């Protein structure tokens, strides 16, 4: 932590950046912090409760953050995949952000948790995560635990669902999607949802019914899944923030696995790898096409 704070203080006092985006202790546990003065660097923390994917704040659709000027961002290895995604899709110029990597051995699910990190409390996405540090970072600080072995519960749940008859899957998703109130928290918090104006907000034509009934919700979650195909970094933020407790990660992770199997793409922190949807191979499989 001292190392992180010292680095942030130096970047701010030397004028390398105008703000450091990291985590602080809030009234309800860890939360995103925006440090703009060298003294403020002492607010920064990093521990297993720092679950948020701060890459969301780099997304260009947050005009109110532009006035901060050049920022440094503290990032976990998994967040680095999101930053790489934003760079890959030319949403963030690499030179516009200083990346402070923190070594990470996993986080819990709830930033307000008083649990220690253990096999029982670790966030599902951390199970099987191979990365202890992000290669994209300009600076890397801290030490990391050993990480946790996979597979994730979500992967198991997806397999279970996939093994069921279609009508049972339909019933499962109907019950889940019906809960959605279309607050769009899943979209707002997603680091890879970077459209300036979302399809769901467009009215001419209105492809997605804006009403939070099952049919409109279905269209929304289909659109979201399609738009995140090959983009989703499986940070689990959508599922964490859903005020209705919908297991959105099942959908995005399912699609991620389809993309991985068919097109050999796994989100990495290498921005040079092209996005799988947006490119093609002449010999892509087409067994489903008559």
């Amino acid at each position, binding site marked *: 932590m001292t190392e992180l704070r010292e680095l942030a203080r130096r970047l701010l006092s030397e004028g390398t950046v105008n703000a450091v985006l990291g985590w602080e202790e809030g009234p309800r546990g860890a*939360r*995103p912090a925006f440090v703009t003065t060298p003294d403020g660097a002492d607010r920064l923390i990093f521990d297993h409760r720092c679950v948020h994917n701060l890459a969301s704040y780099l997304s260009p659709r*947050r*005009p*109110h953050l532009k006035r901060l000027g050049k920022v440094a961002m503290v990032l976990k290895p998994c967040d680095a995949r999101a930053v790489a995604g934003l760079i890959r899709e030319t949403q963030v110029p690499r030179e516009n952000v200083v990346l402070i990597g923190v070594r990470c051995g996993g986080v819990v699910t709830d930033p307000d948790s008083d649990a220690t990190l253990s096999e029982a409390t670790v966030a599902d996405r951390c199970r099987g995560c191979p990365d202890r540090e992000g290669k994209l970072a300009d600076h890397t600080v801290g030490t990391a635990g050993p990480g946790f072995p996979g597979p994730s519960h979500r992967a198991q749940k997806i397999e279970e669902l996939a093994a069921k008859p279609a009508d049972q899957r339909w019933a499962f998703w109907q019950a889940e999607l019906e809960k959605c109130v279309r607050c769009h928290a899943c979209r707002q*918090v997603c680091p890879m949802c970077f459209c300036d104006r979302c399809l769901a907000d467009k009215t001419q034509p209105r492809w997605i019914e*804006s009403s939070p009934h099952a049919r409109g919700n279905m269209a929304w979650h289909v659109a979201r899944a399609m738009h995140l195909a090959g983009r989703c970094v499986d940070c689990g*933020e959508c599922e964490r923030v859903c*005020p209705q*407790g919908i297991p959105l990660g099942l959908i995005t992770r399912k699609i991620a696995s389809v993309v991985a199997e068919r097109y050999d793409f796994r989100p990495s922190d290498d921005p040079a790898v092209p996005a799988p949807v947006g490119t093609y191979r002449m010999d892509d499989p087409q067994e489903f096409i008559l």
Partner: protein
Amino acid sequence: MSTTTFIRTGDLKGLVADLRAAGVGVAGPARTSDGAVDYRSITAFDDVVLDAQPRNSLKQFFLPPTEPLFKYQRKGSDVAILEISATFPPRVIVGARPCDAAAVDVLDHVMNWDYKDEPWFGRREATTIVTFACPGGDRSCFCTAVGLGPDATRGSDLLLVPAGDGYYVEVVTEKGKRLVDAYPKRFGAGAGVDATLSYREKARASVEGHVPARPDVIRQWVQEHFEDPFWADISLRCHGCGGCAAACPTCHCFDIVDEPETLTEGTRRRNWDTCQTSVFTAHASGHNPRADQCGRCRQRVNHKFAIYPARFNDILCTGCGRCARTCPAGQDVTEILNRIVAMATGQGGAA
């Protein structure tokens, strides 16, 4: 209404069974498939979970996330309007929290402001709210700072406070009295108000002091500091999702949309909406009077603690703390209010 009575726990179970047998819908806080507690339809009192604040509020029982206003049908150039009924079957909510019951009463002002919102009041009249005094909250609770409390009766038809082998019952409204009168065998003599005092005190102590009970100070500061850098400061972490508004028992903003189902017919609906999104105020021309998150964060605080009080002499917040619990970025209303009070009373500024 100041009648009191008593109901034993066994009779409460019986009451829920009686109501259901009589065809009355019963809802209460109960466990969902994902492990949370929501206000939802219940089949027996045993489903009710009283020791956790439900994730949703009672708002959706009166202002559903989406509801049809009417249907239309085109025939050539003509259009027929098909009405949606505003009569609702009776239902009882058992196990409401005082903050959630109060919120419904708070919203009656705006829903009846010169124009009566029939769907709202249709559901209001059909619903009897049986509130259970709150056992106490967590650090985000601040009902006592907005003139309420863990045993506040506002918005409730009956208030039940645990005492002895059951619940001490305060009959708050005529509607509450009708419920008691309809099932006389279920209510009777039991522990008096004295037996409830320690419960009430303990609950109150758990929520007091989280926010200073200075609504007038907050209101004045918000009214006088529209352009304060404080708003830009708090808006930094805001993602602009509507999670807070969806969870809030008093956020009532809505959208009205037409949804064609075929080329000739469709439904006009009203849907929950939130001032936290950019499209909320965006004009079709592209102009947006509330251009960034700073103004949107301010609007939410302003509406709750200044605009509504100025208009209806009532605070559009019941201190339930759900917005703080649900915020994915750790925005905390108690912190915001504390900072406002500190600034207003000269004990600190925008950090």
